[in-house]
């Protein structure tokens, strides 16, 4: 029998903060953290100021093997596990699903290579580990005592949303009772910025950096790299009820697909992306009219937002749900964006207040209900969408928990 799957803990480390009350305050006050990187002032970034992994995870001798993105993963995973109240015995049986991407901080890692030799004072013998995608999972397993079924998912910017979806499916199908799922990433280092700038996907809008990211706005021209991490504890409803865990929400459906057309750009017709959204709704047993809110991928690139806006219109017209885009608040955290956006959505569902899309002055589609001001009130059902390079599409349906 299929299990119902609920979320019982939310750990997040973001540019809006890591303390949940503080995050809500910052969302209410419109307090964001954007900057111009000194090495490339034509682009904007959304850094997590004052991030110190040890503050969140304590002493850990293997920290040197984690790149900054993996440190966000470990920090937010530890916060989720601490919040969950799960016993060591329960954690030992828990699964682990981590969305991860490539480590692009090549300039800091390799200031110079001399005649094929790579060495400098302080270079870890096993520097290689900072480049392995499953180093975050290895660290989290050690730090949190997880020993169960696991996978590291590398489906670009849909990776951590898919990681949550994979955990959902394993629990729903009875392979696991409990799982930790999410991701962490940071690509606002010189290597990341150079790579994305070359790809022509970054916003180069002049003016205040907090106005550079404009999802779904007519003036949008690219994304703003962000960073951070988020992990959720998912468990079967039965398991959560048995241990009287507090419940943040229920995961009801997952949809996945591949465009199979290009290496980077999304299919301009959004055919497979639409299929992913529709199959998530189908698994959740929901009609499109029953969705209250969409957390859009909303990168602020011209093509993504055009394709996504049309897709939302096709699936949900005539009454489109309220559409928000958290990247306007925290930038685009690459493989971690889905987990961060799901965590923020859950926090907002609990606070009964959904933030507007920042910098949205002239929406690119009038028929879509893009939020240009805060929406107060109870959110029952939400769809989270993420699309990645390589034509990776992922959609997840979550619902306010009703006992």
């Amino acid at each position, binding site marked *: 029998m299929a299990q119902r799957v609920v979320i019982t803990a939310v750990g997040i480390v973001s540019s809006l903060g890591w303390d949940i009350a503080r995050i809500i305050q910052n969302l209410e006050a419109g307090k964001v953290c954007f900057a111009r990187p000194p090495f490339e002032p034509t682009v904007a970034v959304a850094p997590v100021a004052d991030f110190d992994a040890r503050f969140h995870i304590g*002493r*850990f001798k293997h920290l040197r093997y984690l790149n900054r993105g993996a440190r966000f993963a470990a920090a937010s995973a530890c916060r989720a596990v601490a919040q969950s109240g799960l016993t060591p015995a329960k954690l030992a049986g828990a699964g682990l699903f981590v969305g991860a991407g490539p480590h692009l901080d090549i300039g800091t890692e390799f200031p110079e290579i001399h005649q094929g030799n790579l060495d400098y*004072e302080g270079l870890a*013998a*096993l520097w290689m580990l900072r480049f392995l995608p499953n180093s975050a999972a290895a660290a989290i397993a050690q730090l949190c005592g997880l020993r169960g079924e696991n996978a590291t998912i590398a489906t670009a910017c849909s990776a951590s949303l898919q990681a949550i979806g994979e955990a959902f499916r394993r629990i729903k199908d009875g392979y696991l009772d409990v799982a930790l799922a999410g991701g962490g990433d940071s690509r606002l280092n010189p290597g990341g910025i150079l790579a994305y700038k070359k790809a022509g996907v970054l916003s180069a809008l002049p003016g205040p950096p907090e106005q550079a990211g404009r999802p779904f706005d007519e003036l949008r021209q690219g994304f703003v790299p962000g960073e951070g991490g988020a992990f959720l504890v998912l468990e079967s409803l039965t398991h959560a009820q048995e241990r009287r865990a507090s419940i943040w929400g229920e995961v009801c459906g997952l949809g996945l697909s591949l465009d199979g057309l290009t290496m980077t750009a999304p299919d301009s017709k959004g055919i497979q992306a639409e299929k992913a959204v529709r199959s998530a709704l189908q698994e959740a047993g929901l009609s499109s009219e029953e969705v209250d809110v969409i957390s859009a991928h909303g990168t602020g690139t011209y093509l993504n937002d055009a394709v996504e806006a049309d897709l939302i219109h096709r699936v949900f017209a005539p009454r489109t749900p309220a559409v928000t885009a958290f990247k306007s608040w925290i930038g685009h955290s690459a493989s971690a964006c889905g987990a961060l956006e799901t965590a923020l959505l859950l926090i907002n569902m609990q606070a009964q207040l959904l933030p507007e899309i920042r910098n949205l002055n002239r929406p690119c589609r009038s028929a879509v209900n893009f939020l240009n001001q805060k929406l107060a009130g109870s959110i029952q059902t939400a769809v989270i969408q993420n699309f990645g390079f390589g034509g990776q599409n992922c959609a997840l349906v979550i619902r306010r928990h009703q006992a």
Partner: protein
Amino acid sequence: MKSMPDVDQPMTIFNDVRAILVDLLDVEPAEIGAGTYLVRDLGIESIDFLELAVALNSRFKVRIEDNDIFLFGLRAQLAKAGPNPAPTPEALQAKFPFLSQQRLMEILQDLDYGPVVKVADLVAYIQWRKAMEAAA
């Protein structure tokens, strides 16, 4: 007689080794003394030995032979020699010349309790190696 430069004094070497271990293992300096066991007390594992060898080489600019400094070769040496006659410190000193006979005797009596290598053994190795390389 020429006095040895300060950097070759055991206490100076010990302080530097301790600083490396503090950084590598994320522990407090107070947790590390000359008699501290690397594996039994500090939980050093293979990956840490690798980093330690690189860090010691980088700090002291001497060649670090893992099998010698960390006594990895000790048990193999004993196994090769066989139980008869019983191993003696004298016999081991050919392979581990940086350790005193007293220390080797202590090691032989300590084998059943786990990995024997202590912080002081690293200091002894580095001091010996520095002298060897200076002489060469």
